[in-house]
């Protein structure tokens, strides 16, 4: 099912189908990247007896944006959270098969999940800044990983905030409580906080579902900015969003990866009738 989507951007601009109007007019050309960064082989996730994600095989390409869509309860979030082992928090959760990150098994015996999470950052559905100052929020990760020099921290913070396109809005109140920001600002702050750890992969779990349209647009712009620098995976229930921001799309239904193809192809010419029914809104 894992289709080659390496040429996704080109093919998207080549074809001029109706759905392409959702794509941003100009897409940054990604230099480098395109190798299989995360590879799932017969990968299943169980909650106790219940198999929530069933034998998934997929390649996630580096530096591209991969969207995961599907009706609620289809296992898309579970799959995303498996990549940085956030599912470890649920005691009954266990896996089978292999999930490789840069060729190393994420669920291997000798894998240190803490070091893994440093490389695989995550942004959650609801903005969740710590009840601390903006500065401390961003500095949290670098401090964890041994940066204590104030000047260096400041550098990292400025860089991360600029990358997350929020520097201009908060640069004069870094010492204020982060909970005082608006929802959209908080979410971008959370992105900045994740970027400060310098991850390779960015997992976004429905990052705009709690935001208003304006803030959503800003986050989407941000994803476009980051595209090419990070491997990004985004879970979304909003198909327009998936088609706007992603290079390839995975469609999950009841735990099964039904189709994985370049976004343009999946939205214009789905292979599976189920996918077609879903994207045309026959069920949700």
């Amino acid at each position, binding site marked *: 099912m894992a289709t080659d989507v390496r040429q996704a951007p080109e093919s998207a601009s080549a074809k001029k189908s109706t759905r392409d109007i959702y794509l941003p007019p100009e897409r940054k050309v990604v230099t480098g990247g395109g190798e299989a960064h995360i590879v799932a082989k017969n990968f299943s996730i169980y909650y106790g007896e219940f198999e929530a994600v069933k034998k998934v095989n997929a390649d996630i390409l580096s530096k591209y944006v991969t969207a995961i869509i599907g009706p609620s309860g289809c296992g898309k979030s579970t799959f995303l959270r498996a990549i940085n082992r956030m599912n470890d928090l649920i005691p009954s959760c266990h896996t089978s098969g292999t999930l490789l990150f840069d060729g190393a098994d994420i669920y*291997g015996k000798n894998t240190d999940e803490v070091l893994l999470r*440093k490389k695989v950052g995550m942004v959650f559905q609801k903005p969740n800044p710590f009840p601390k100052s903006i500065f401390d929020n961003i500095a949290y990760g670098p401090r964890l990983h*041994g940066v204590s020099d104030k000047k260096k921290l400041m550098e990292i913070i400025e860089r991360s905030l600029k990358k997350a396109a929020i520097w201009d809005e908060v640069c004069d109140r870094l010492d204020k409580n982060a909970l005082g920001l608006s929802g959209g600002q908080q979410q971008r702050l959370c992105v900045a906080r994740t970027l400060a750890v310098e991850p390779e992969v960015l997992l976004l779990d429905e990052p705009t579902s709690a935001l208003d349209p304006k803030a959503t647009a800003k986050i989407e712009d941000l994803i476009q900015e980051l595209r090419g620098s990070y491997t990004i995976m985004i879970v979304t229930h909003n198909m327009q969003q998936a088609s706007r921001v992603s290079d390839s799309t995975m469609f999950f239904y009841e735990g099964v990866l039904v189709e994985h193809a370049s976004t343009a192809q999946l939205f214009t010419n789905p292979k599976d009738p189920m996918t077609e029914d879903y994207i045309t809104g026959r069920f949700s």
Partner: protein
Amino acid sequence: MAAERSGESTRSNDFVLSARKRAAQKLITQFGEGVLFVLAAFVAIIVLFIFFFVARDAVPFFQIRGFSEFFTSSNWYPADDPAEFGAFAIIYGSAMVTLGSALIAVPMGVAAAICLSDILPFSIRQYAKPVIEMLAAIPSVAFGFFALVVLAPLMQNSGGALLMWVWWILVSPFLLLTVIVAADLLTNTIQDEKRRQQRYVTLVVLFGVIAIAVLLKVGAVLNGIQIITGTNALNVSIILSFMALPTIVSVSEDALQAVGRDIREGSYALGATRAETIVKTILPAASSGILAAVILGIMRALGETMVVWMASGNSSHVPEPWFNYLEAVRTLTATIAGDMGEADQVTGSARFHVLFAMGLLLLIISFISNLVSERIVVRQRKILTGQ
């Protein structure tokens, strides 16, 4: 650990450690968790120790004196020669004040809990809750002091009048209600509205006269009562009920809150009044939680020491007649507190060990009732969540 990690090389899959390093890391984590577990298990160890050490000093008493005297005789002369250790009157005293306080605290506590959860608007509830918390916070010795210095003289000097006023204030509204309800029920079957009205009025007047007569008569009898001693079972029961109330109110309120909104709405939608909704649907649904609250409240009264020690009169006899709350009594807790100082701890005479036997009795009762109330709460939660 964090600093050590950051020093890793930039190899892209550096999150995979060497087998030895991973094993060492796991060992450290497990050791840490083990330490946490030991500290968390500290409580369980303490509970075992309490049982063990109280039982260790209680067993010798039963070895020396056997069981029957302790539980059946009322002769408590631990200092005499030969000594007598009949604790029946003391156990009876404990039961009596506990029951007395429950009789006052349970109806009031449940009514207050209902009021808090279903009747009061949120803004008032915010002020009512701290009142209850304050009542719970006042140290028992302060209650004991109040019982001894304020309430006891008051009872001794004007007890009869006090009882009469309490009777009038508390009972007259209930009698009035009974009159109205009885008249209504008796006229219910009459179809003709006019005749029913007439009959209703006559019955209300008739019952009303009877009720007033009863009220006055009992009031006069109560007024004539002379309370010999202010430090008696009634005094202690009243104060203990103050102390049990906060527990009963807060635990029952939790139980009532746990009954969902939909049940309430379902009842209102069928045309029930608030009282009917509460009495017929909410209370039965919350009944086991309320039972647990009552058990916890009663335990608070049974285990209380200072109030009974200061204000129960400490006289080891079964009151005459057995329900006479106006006589002095003595309880298990007060006996332990009062006699430990005189008992010989070093050689450990029967006089010392009998106090531990009492302690063990209290401990077992509290343990069982705790288990029971816990089970009840768990069961109610299961029923309400539909499992």
